[in-house]
């Protein structure tokens, strides 16, 4: 029943194992091999556990059962007919054969159905080489058909600029529909017509309007759904694959880059490694194309007679060093300030603050803080509860989640996915406090407390101090808060997730109250971009050394002075708003900016930085800030360097520099501008340097002898000396996410407006998304933030 009518809209229950953790086991025999699995396991999964592969198209782990393709037929003793392994639950003593001639024949016959209208155009199909249908036809030899009728044909359709559909290749397994409905909760795909003419349709009939995550493309076992950025570009075996970490939001998805000739061709996570499993949002799957952009900065620029002119690395770096030193000598170290990035690696952040503190001699260092990690660390440290950070994995395994503020569907797609998985697969309850009717509140929440704009902190304060709730705070019924408190008191191990709505003292309140909840409540702060957590952890803060040690604390200073062999200034530096104010008033004379665009982020007025005597910016692209710079250093992107990043939940991951893919002679790429990292076979835009390389080169200019040759060297020092980062290196380098355990008592938040989210949507990601064709090509990117599909 390849294109069978029966397979339509039947709602099949989830397999039992996903709903309950089965303690009892069942033993059965598959192909003569005895297998013991938890009760309730599906036969197909039991076989997989025993290393026996049963071909399947419609079956997909964690999606509802479809039983549509009949590829998984097996023979079970005492059962008269062949059975579908994907819908059969194992029972004690079952004897199963998956390789008999009868089974092989049945599969071959099923394949003949799949191929009724299938063109077998593997040589031009994107999926050729990694296609489940191609593999099966190869194995069972079913390329011939007994059908005499001409094959039906439809032209391929462009559902959107990122999702294309090629009807003749579709085998109607419904995986795409189910992942979109069940996994994404977008429900954008449907099935139209019937029988042999059935086809997948997009929600707007002639086009698709959705999250554009591309999950449907990846899950399609054949080449029916293809990617707008990858189609007809390459064959899968031509690419060299490297698992690295997405550089967009703060969730830290593993994304596997396929690279050919020093160019990223595609990204996906088909091996399901990493904290995100199969998940990637539109940014992780398509939004890397800024790396390939022609608008990248590739030559250092130096301002001469008012104009930025092309220069050399040598000149740019030595000018930077000389000017910074001269300004420091003339006006004092306090006349220099440093602004760091939310995307650069921990190693780079660590070196940047080391440079600021030991070579420039100032604590004037900060970054755009998108979540108040410091306050969470201090609150948990004070409560002796630093084992209560929740990770992204904890979130998908949670039984109860309380979400305060933020809109994860847009701002933290993985966190939203994990929450949906917990609700769908484990029956978890979600509680939402928000001033907007965010999608998770509407679709998944058990209790939704709608508060007035900015009311989240007041609400938490009332809960913590058991104060009566101020009138007008809760907008959707006075009893809602009571209901929330009552339900939470009955939950156990609730994970409390919050956005920038809570900062400073409000986080103290939250932790104080949250820890009184039953079980082991845990916490997660949501901040933007790949390494905003790492920026805070590594001490890109005016009053905080790496590992949340207060600059004012002599013991903490001594600790790092011993490691760095140089004095650390004692006085707390200026925070970012003070830095920018002082730059405008003329008190700050020199500003060093790495991977940040403060002119835009802080909406500085025209000419605000014109009083600076010197501005040096390391960036990927021309921005509002580089436009004002005296020296612009062209930086390497996340896909062109190695190092670690810490996701918003504190999980440390290794970002691996991809191989270049195919051997291009070095002469073709120009001189190799590095000493710190051997570049030979790894990806790099010619002319750029990683921030790590830039910082090491600058330190050399300053005459400092830093003992690092690579990111690994810096990481070893971080592991050895930064509290909370004492992790094992091998699992990290092997691609595992390792939880850090930040602890410390950093100074309290200086002022609330230092912490604010950039409110990126699913389709934006600060500066870099301006240079992504993919993210700007989809119509949805033009819809207002918060639009729900």
């Amino acid at each position, binding site marked *: 029943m390849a294109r069978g009518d029966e397979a339509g809209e039947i709602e099949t229950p989830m397999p039992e194992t996903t709903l309950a953790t089965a303690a009892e086991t069942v033993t059965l025999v598959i192909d003569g091999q005895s297998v013991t699995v938890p009760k309730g396991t599906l036969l197909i999964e039991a076989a997989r556990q025993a290393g026996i592969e049963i071909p399947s198209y419609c079956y997909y782990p964690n999606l509802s059962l479809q039983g549509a393709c009949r590829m998984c037929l097996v023979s079970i003793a005492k059962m008269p007919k062949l059975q579908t392994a994907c819908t059969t639950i194992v029972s004690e003593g079952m004897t199963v054969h998956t390789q008999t001639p009868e089974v092989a024949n049945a599969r071959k016959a099923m394949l003949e159905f799949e191929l009724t209208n299938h063109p077998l155009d593997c040589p031009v199909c994107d999926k050729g080489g990694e296609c489940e249908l191609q593999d099966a036809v190869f194995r069972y030899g079913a390329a011939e058909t007994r059908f005499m009728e001409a094959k039906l044909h439809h032209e391929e359709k462009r559902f959107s600029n990122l999702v294309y559909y090629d009807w003749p290749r579709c085998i109607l397994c419904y995986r795409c529909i189910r992942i979109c409905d069940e996994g994404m909760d977008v429900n954008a795909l*449907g*099935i*139209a017509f019937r029988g042999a003419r059935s086809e997948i*349709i997009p*929600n707007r009939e002639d086009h698709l309007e959705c999250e554009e995550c591309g999950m449907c493309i990846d899950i399609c076992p054949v080449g029916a759904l293809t990617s707008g950025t990858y189609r007809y570009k390459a064959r899968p075996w031509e690419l060299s694959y490297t698992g690295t970490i997405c550089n967009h939001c703060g969730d830290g998805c593993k994304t596997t880059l396929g690279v050919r000739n020093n160019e990223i061709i595609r990204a996906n996570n088909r091996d399901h490694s990493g904290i995100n499993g199969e998940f990637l949002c539109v940014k992780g799957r398509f939004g890397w194309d800024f790396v390939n952009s022609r608008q990248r900065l590739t030559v250092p620029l130096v301002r001469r007679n008012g104009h930025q002119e092309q220069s050399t690395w040598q000149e740019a770096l030595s000018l930077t060093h000389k000017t910074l030193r001269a300004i420091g000598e003339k006006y004092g170290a306090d006349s220099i300030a440093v602004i760091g990035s939310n995307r650069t690696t921990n190693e780079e952040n660590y070196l940047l603050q080391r440079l600021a503190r030991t070579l420039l001699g100032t604590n004037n260092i900060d970054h755009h803080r998108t979540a108040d990690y410091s306050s969470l660390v201090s609150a948990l440290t004070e409560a002796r509860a630093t084992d209560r950070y929740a990770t992204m994995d904890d979130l998908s395994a949670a039984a109860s989640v309380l979400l305060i503020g933020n809109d994860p569907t847009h701002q933290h797609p993985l966190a939203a996915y994990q929450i949906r998985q917990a609700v769908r697969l484990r029956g978890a309850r979600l509680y939402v406090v928000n001033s907007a009717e965010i999608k998770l509140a509407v679709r998944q929440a058990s209790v939704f407390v709608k508060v007035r704009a900015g009311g989240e902190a007041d609400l938490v304060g009332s809960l913590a101090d058991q104060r009566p709730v101020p009138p007008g705070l809760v907008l959707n019924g006075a009893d809602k808060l009571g209901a929330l408190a009552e339900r939470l008191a009955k939950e156990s191990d609730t994970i409390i997730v919050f956005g920038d709505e809570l900062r400073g003292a409000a986080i103290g309140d939250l932790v104080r109250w949250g820890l009184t909840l039953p079980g082991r409540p845990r916490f997660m702060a949501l901040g933007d971009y790949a390494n905003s957590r790492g920026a805070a952890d590594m001490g890109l803060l005016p009053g905080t050394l790496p590992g949340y040690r207060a600059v004012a604390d002599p013991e903490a200073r001594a600790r790092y002075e011993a490691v760095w062999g140089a004095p650390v200034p004692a006085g707390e530096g200026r925070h970012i708003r003070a830095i920018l104010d002082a730059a405008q008033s003329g008190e700050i004379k020199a500003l060093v900016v790495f991977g940040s665009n403060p002119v835009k982020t802080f909406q500085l007025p025209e000419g605000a930085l014109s009083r600076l005597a010197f501005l040096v910016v390391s960036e990927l692209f021309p921005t509002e800030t580089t436009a004002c710079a005296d020296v612009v250093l062209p930086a390497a992107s996340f896909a062109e360097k190695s190092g670690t990043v810490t996701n918003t939940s504190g999980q440390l991951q290794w970002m691996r520099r991809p191989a270049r893919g195919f051997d291009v002679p070095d002469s073709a790429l120009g001189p190799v501008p590095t000493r710190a990292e051997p570049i030979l076979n790894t990806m790099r835009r010619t002319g750029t340097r990683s921030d790590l390389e830039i910082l090491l080169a600058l330190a050399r200019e300053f005459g400092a002898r830093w003992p690092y040759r690579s990111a690994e060297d810096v990481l070893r020092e971080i592991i050895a000396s930064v509290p909370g980062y004492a992790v094992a290196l091998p699992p990290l380098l092997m691609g595992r996410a390792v939880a850090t355990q930040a602890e410390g008592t950093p100074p309290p938040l200086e002022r609330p407006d230092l912490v604010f989210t950039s409110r990126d949507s699913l389709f934006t990601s600060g500066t870099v998304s301006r240079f992504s064709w993919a993210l700007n090509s989809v119509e949805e990117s033009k819809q207002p933030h918060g639009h729900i599909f």
Partner: protein
Amino acid sequence: MLSEALKAKFDQVIARYPVKRSAIVPLLLFGQDEIGYISDELVEEIARRVEVRPIEVIEDISYYSMLHRQPIGKYNLQVCTNISCLLRGGEEILEHCRRRLGIDPKGTTPDGLFSLEEVECLGACCGAPAMQVNYEFYENLTPEKVDRLIEELRIRTANGHPR
């Protein structure tokens, strides 16, 4: 805008089913009867009422050939060419309609009066060859009878007769 009567009908039909979405097909039929086809507005309205996404309503429409997403003629001539009718001249009846109206199956006359469709067994085999016009059956057809019928329908329209 849907009429008040139709909205009331919708309420009544939905109340009849334990699961709201089960009402989709009857709602589509009643809606199509009033509007003549299934408009975007109707899709949205039904989806809203039975609490599904519009695409799920669209799936159903595409499944059933008697549900029309585009406006069709006031009178939809559905000529059966299945086995009994075939044996008794159904194909000729279809061919006659085609020539007489100047349209192919799935087509509509320029004046918007007639649409033509070739359909499978109407369950009227004992009166083959048969044809269904909207909800009325016409049996034991001959080309002459078809001509008379078409003429009659024209007159009916001219007299302001409803569908």
